[in-house]
């Protein structure tokens, strides 16, 4: 598997600086896209961003791990806590297209707890529908 710059994805070497990008496709729905590695060092920032999304009114959360290059147990813990806290009328979905990232959900059996989609569009389409956000 090579990207356009000829890099091998096998042994993905954690080259992406960790960052988060939040999007609000609907009033009740926040998408947090994760870039880079989620580990003990960065999990807190992910936690804070999800806390902020919920405080800002989101009742459904999508965590998009398409550009995540690593997720460890600290990251899993953050996701589990937020899923547990979320209003049960809302939804919590993950976007995990890459096999290397999906792997950690499989070995932890958390793929049986988290609904996992291959694309952000699929995740949004599967959420309980709120009014679209025109803002």
């Amino acid at each position: 598997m090579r990207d356009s710059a000829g890099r091998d994805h096998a042994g993905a070497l954690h080259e992406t600086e960790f960052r988060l990008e939040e999007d609000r496709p609907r009033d009740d729905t926040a998408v947090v896209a994760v870039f880079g590695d989620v580990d003990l060092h960065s999990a807190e920032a992910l936690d804070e961003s999800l806390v902020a999304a919920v405080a800002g009114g989101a009742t459904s959360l999508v965590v998009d791990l398409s550009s995540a290059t690593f997720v460890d147990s600290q990251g899993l813990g953050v996701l589990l806590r937020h899923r547990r806290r979320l209003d049960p009328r809302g939804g919590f979905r993950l976007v995990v297209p890459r096999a290397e990232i999906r792997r950690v959900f499989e070995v932890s059996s958390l793929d049986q707890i988290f609904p996992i989609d291959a694309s952000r569009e699929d995740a949004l389409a599967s959420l309980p529908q709120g009014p679209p956000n025109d803002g």
Partner: protein
Amino acid sequence: MGDAAIRLCFPARAEYLVLPRLLVAGVVRKLGFSPQEVADLELAVTEACANAVRHAYADGVGGDVEVSLRPSADRLELVVSDAGAGMTLPLPDPPPAPSPDGGMGLPLIRAVVDDLAIGNGSGGCGTIVRMTKRSHADV
């Protein structure tokens, strides 16, 4: 790649946890591991090192984490050790159920390596986590 060990020693701080991942990925990429297995090894080394960062040393004291890699034709031996508080061994059997607040590290390691052995350091000081993973990829 031959049999000699590669060692990395770094201060027990979360910001450095990327280093053992980089090292493992760099060492194994010419061994016959599949991308999935490389991901497993990165997870295993990270969990073991993160435990040393979180549990080994009292706040403010600090100490080092050492990672030793021994690559051979069909496997990687990974040893993560610290000189910290040490763990109570043997581990409870069955292990306590993982919860969102913790307890997932060792089960994750166990799920992704072929062999896991945990011991105390010499003189009873610190923790030594030995992991072995064989490559099953037909490359």
